[in-house]
């Protein structure tokens, strides 16, 4: 699996780095001369998980490709906060076209590089969950189906945060958004709706699909690095908590991502050609309540009459993930 066994008992592979680790065991982010692909001065909110995830992913990709990297970016927070005229935070060649066409733009970029014989230059496409799972889904599926040589990275914060926190098809059940308000008999987002795009990506049987969170940096970097080592269509879905949309404290961003993984709410795994090949095990299993309670978007579950039924429902979904992806026991068949 993704974590190389490191004979270092103090913090193992959990911290970003450590002065005592051998260089080959250090993370890209630990490097004094890391590329900071997403530079300081961007206008993301305090504690933005997407800003963090994007730098993690693109730095890793730049490292893996020796900086021979160009990117296409969907409309959304990432695009808006990173390139407000007259400044940009990006260090790599970067293009923003539209909300719904990023995968296709990347396909075009890859085609151009191929015809020009510059296949050493690699292409990444990135977008939020809205631009990926909703409006950009057609182009994404086309890119997958043609197996174009693109790594698509989705930064999933479970909603349209840029436009003021509306519901997307990646918004989790019961979560409050501006279009699924916490009112009525079944407050928040509806159960039984939405889609898990990594599974749909797997159905295209593309070479590589992976999920990750900003709480497991080394796992994330490992997956991006692995993806850049492959050709064809690749997809990485990264959970990036949004303090604004989730109603969490700015310093809790990584903690929330960690809780999502440790509760089983968000399964972290790898799949190759449609088959799950590895999962990142839960280290200290926790009930979903631990994850839900700190988020204001779930505040309605913890009012005067706590919605025990709803919480139980969410728990059952997490349990299903744990069963389905074998997040607890050792090794998978």
């Amino acid at each position: 699996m993704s974590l190389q066994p490191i004979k270092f008992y103090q913090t193992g592979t959990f911290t970003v780095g450590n002065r005592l680790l051998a260089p080959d065991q250090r993370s890209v982010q630990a490097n004094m001369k890391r590329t900071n692909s997403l530079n300081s001065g961007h206008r993301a909110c305090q504690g933005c998980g997407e800003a963090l995830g994007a730098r993690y992913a693109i730095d890793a990709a730049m490292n893996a490709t020796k900086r021979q990297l160009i990117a296409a970016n969907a409309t959304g927070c990432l695009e808006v906060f990173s390139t407000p005229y007259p400044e940009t935070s990006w260090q790599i060649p970067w293009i923003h076209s539209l909300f719904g066409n990023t995968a296709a733009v990347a396909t075009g970029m890859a085609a151009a590089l191929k015809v020009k014989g510059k296949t050493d230059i690699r292409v990444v496409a990135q977008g939020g969950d809205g631009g990926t799972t909703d409006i950009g889904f057609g182009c994404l599926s086309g890119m997958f189906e043609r197996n174009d040589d693109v790594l698509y990275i989705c930064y999933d914060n479970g909603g349209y945060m840029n436009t003021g926190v509306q519901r997307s098809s990646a918004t989790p059940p019961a979560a409050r958004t501006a279009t699924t308000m916490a009112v009525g008999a079944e407050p928040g987002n509806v159960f039984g709706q939405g889609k898990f795009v990594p599974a749909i990506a797997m159905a295209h049987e593309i070479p590589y699909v992976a999920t990750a969170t900003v709480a497991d940096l080394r796992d994330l970097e490992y997956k991006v690095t692995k993806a850049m080592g492959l050709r064809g269509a690749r997809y990485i879905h990264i959970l990036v908590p949004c303090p604004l949309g989730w109603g969490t404290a700015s310093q809790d961003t990584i903690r929330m991502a960690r809780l999502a993984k440790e509760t089983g709410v968000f399964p972290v795994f790898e799949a190759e050609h449609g088959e799950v090949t590895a999962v990142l095990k839960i280290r200290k299993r926790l009930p979903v309540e631990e994850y839900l309670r700190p988020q204001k978007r779930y505040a309605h579950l913890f009012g005067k009459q706590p919605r025990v039924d709803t919480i139980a429902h969410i728990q059952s979904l997490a349990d299903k993930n744990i069963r389905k992806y074998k997040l607890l026991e050792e090794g998978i068949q």
Partner: protein
Amino acid sequence: MMDKPFAITLNPGSSLANHTGSWRTTRPVYVDRLPPCNATCPAGENIQGWLVHAESGDYEKAWRSLVENNPLPAIMGRACYHPCEGACNRNRLDEAVGINSVERFLGDEAIKHGWKFDAPAKSTGKRVLVIGAGPAGLSAAYHLQRLGHQAVIYEAAEHAGGMMRYGIPKYRLPRDVIDAEVQRILDLGVEIHLNTKVANLADTMKEGFDAAFLGVGAHIAKRAYIPAGDADKVLDAVSVLRGMEGQATPLLGRRVVVYGGGNTAIDVARTAKRLGAEESIIVYRRTREKMPAHDFEVEDALKEGVSIKWLSTITEAGESDIMVEKMALDANGFPQPTGEYERIEADSLVLALGQDTDLSLLEHVEGLVTGNGIVQVDAGMMTGHPGVFAGGDMAGTERTVTVAVGHGKKAARAINAWLRGEKFAPPPKPELATFERLNTWYYSDAPKTVRPVLDIIRRQSTFEEVMGGLDEGNAQFEARRCLSCGNCFECDNCYGVCPDNAVIKLGPGNRFKFNYDYCKGCGMCAAECPCGAIAVVAEDI
């Protein structure tokens, strides 16, 4: 650069022009908090400080850092009851870091490689009298010498070490270890006069000393009245243990009864076993919970076949037996006589009821105050008589080697100040690094290393050291279990988790600094710092 279409196309990384630091309402700052181990160490060791070097395998550096505060690591690594491990935050994760074992490893390494102390500061020409070569005296002498004063030790016994030699059995503290660490102190230039008892302090001071430190210890056994038919069957723990150092080992017989509940009682009982006693019985008037002796010592004793009679007092010692009265705890948990008696066969009875200090040398020292057997001292260990300081068993109620070493250090610094005509002020203690301040997710699970232990049979017959040491491998493992509470150990988390790249990495050993031009004050660095070395403070706006 290509000529770029206006506005639509921008130069890379140009957002540096946008100083987002202005958004900040709170700011992170790096701090060093006081780890609980350091906070509780009687010798005032900077434990986390020297573990850091052990983690990176630089054992000499670790040792040198250690002896800044304590010149006797090899002894400490054996004789210390390590309250640090009790306070260790790692207890809440799995088990405390084996600080004591690493300390011993470093001490033994130093002896093995013959490491010497750093040379003293240039001589001040002052001479300080140190009475007693026990842990307090040795510690005081060592620190005084390093501060540039000439320390002169007067020791009544024929060997240096005090209670470490005459109170702690070999199987816990081999004598060559004591010799080695004492010698290293002497090599620093400390003078020592053995077999030299100071009868009268005032007179001795006249030999040209600018100050004095008293560390004579507590060598007089407390007695309790027990009607005894045959007095020579009744011995005291102090003389028994001291006797172990002489030519003729004390004759205790086949059945030995020890009266008392302290660590000394345990030492005697275990010694008796090793001397060949078939039965070694401790009689104690209260319960195990109430027993002052450390539980792990009791455990060892029981393992070695020592038996203990709880809630029992000795009322009479006869020819070949003693009379024991059963006790019962009253409502307040105090033992009360029950009038129920039992007779136990015994060839000898050893009383281990505590010790007193011989304060005779202090007569006619004006201003010096004594009370319930100990010398009264101020915060700087100075007695009522200016220039006369005291420490160790004679100046405290908590009588351990480690406390004594701590007293020695404290006194030495106070003496140094006093000699310079200053008042000694201990440096302010930083805030405590509590468990709540840690983010323990980041520490990988690593259970404590088990030290090799001598097998029971040999423990019942020989005085070989019971507890083995660590080898380099597991010493480093153990050191690396340290959570580095409250002190940055350069895990790069703050550097990595900042969404605004507002943390500047300064390179190995130099830690990090914040770039407040871009820090938005989200506080993620503080939240994700494993060891709680970042504080978040409000900006005044």
